[in-house]
């Protein structure tokens, strides 16, 4: 049984990559944001997970709306970043974990989650910014990453309840993998923000903090929201909370909060970090 040791949530805003590239971490604007990360990095360096299951959404790099998978999973040995159109430097290849990826894919389809299974997958800032944040200098090549991509771009999008169930099914799949490898789960994106329309600029700090509380202690409470509820309360891109909810579903055992940080705004967004310890279910 592979061991799910814990989870991390983080923003994946492109501006973070620019800030790191331009060494702005200690500036007044960025410091309250980057100060949230050293405890997470220390935990990762101490626990040394072999594999990261990383929930993210593609923003029009790999997938266009000609064919838009609701849920997709990468099963490759390696993934590449590419030009997204606006000048973020591409980063080194991301190492995959093909065997466990295929095991999860097999288990998920059997379990009723009909995934799009990807042997080639360009990964965008949704996946790469969290890796750069956790391993500064892009020193992440030793960690194997399993990308799980959720449609947050085109309605109909999977609802929060469904995303939690996806996470649980991935949790069961990992638990049934015959290996002693250590797995950590990343939920990326969010929290409240809206980039588009006359309503651009909305941030709902109170709701973000409430979501972070519920993610730790009562994730089922978040499934009462529909995507349209999330959009009304937290802005059009607050649906990225679905990646955090999916992450939490993977943790089917005992969860303990080790660290959190919340800072807003970063770019147009409420930005949260959670570090969760996980003890495997009996």
């Amino acid at each position, binding site marked *: 049984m592979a061991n799910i040791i814990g989870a991390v949530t983080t923003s994946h805003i492109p501006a973070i990559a620019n800030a790191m590239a331009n060494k702005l971490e200690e500036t007044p604007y960025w410091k309250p944001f980057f100060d949230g990360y050293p405890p997470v990095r220390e935990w990762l360096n101490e626990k040394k997970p072999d594999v990261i299951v990383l929930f993210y959404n593609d923003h029009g790099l790999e997938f266009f709306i000609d064919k838009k998978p609701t849920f997709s999973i990468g099963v490759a040995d390696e993934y590449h970043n590419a*030009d997204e159109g*606006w000048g973020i430097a591409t980063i080194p290849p991301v190492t995959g974990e093909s065997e466990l990826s295929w095991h999860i894919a097999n288990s998920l389809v059997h379990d009723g989650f009909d995934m799009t299974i990807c042997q080639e997958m360009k990964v965008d800032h949704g996946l790469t910014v969290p890796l750069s944040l956790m391993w500064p200098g892009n020193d992440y090549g030793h960690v194997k990453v399993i990308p799980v991509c959720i449609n947050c771009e085109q*309605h109909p999008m999977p609802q929060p309840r469904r995303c939690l169930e996806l996470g649980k099914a991935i949790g069961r799949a990992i638990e049934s993998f015959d290996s002693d490898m250590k797995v950590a789960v990343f939920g990326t994106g969010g929290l409240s923000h809206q980039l*588009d*329309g006359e309503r651009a600029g909305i*941030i709902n700090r109170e709701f973000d903090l409430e979501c972070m509380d519920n993610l730790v202690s009562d994730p089922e409470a978040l499934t009462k929201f529909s995507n349209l509820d999330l959009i009304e309360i937290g802005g059009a891109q607050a649906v990225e909370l679905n990646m955090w909810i999916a992450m939490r579903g993977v943790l089917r055992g005992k969860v303990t909060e080790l660290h959190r940080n919340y800072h807003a*705004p970063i770019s147009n967004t409420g930005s949260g970090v959670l570090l969760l310890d996980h003890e495997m279910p009996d």
Partner: protein
Amino acid sequence: MSYIDDQREVEGTVLFDHRMAKKGYGLNKMCFSFNGQVGRDEFSQDEAAYCDKFGLSEVQKKAILDKDILTLLKEGGSIYYLAKFAGLLKLNMQDIGALQTGMSVDEFKAMLVKNGQGK
């Protein structure tokens, strides 16, 4: 409640749903091409001709030439693809926010700070 049953509208927001995905297909496909330098260069050489290549409507083409983000959204543009158009114009998300809300960039940034503090 399902998407079919829940037809509510959110003020100041264009949901990128099936209607918009169909209406904006060519527009978004053009913006998707801005992932590549070849597409960006070809657009910059002759913006109107590049719009025609992707079959944009006259309204969409005018909105591209005018950098009119709100009209582009109403005409089926997805913000994720329009963001690539914005990048080509060297505009960041605060610039785009200001354009859409009618504020100056500084006013928009001040609103973000206020919202971020929960005020």
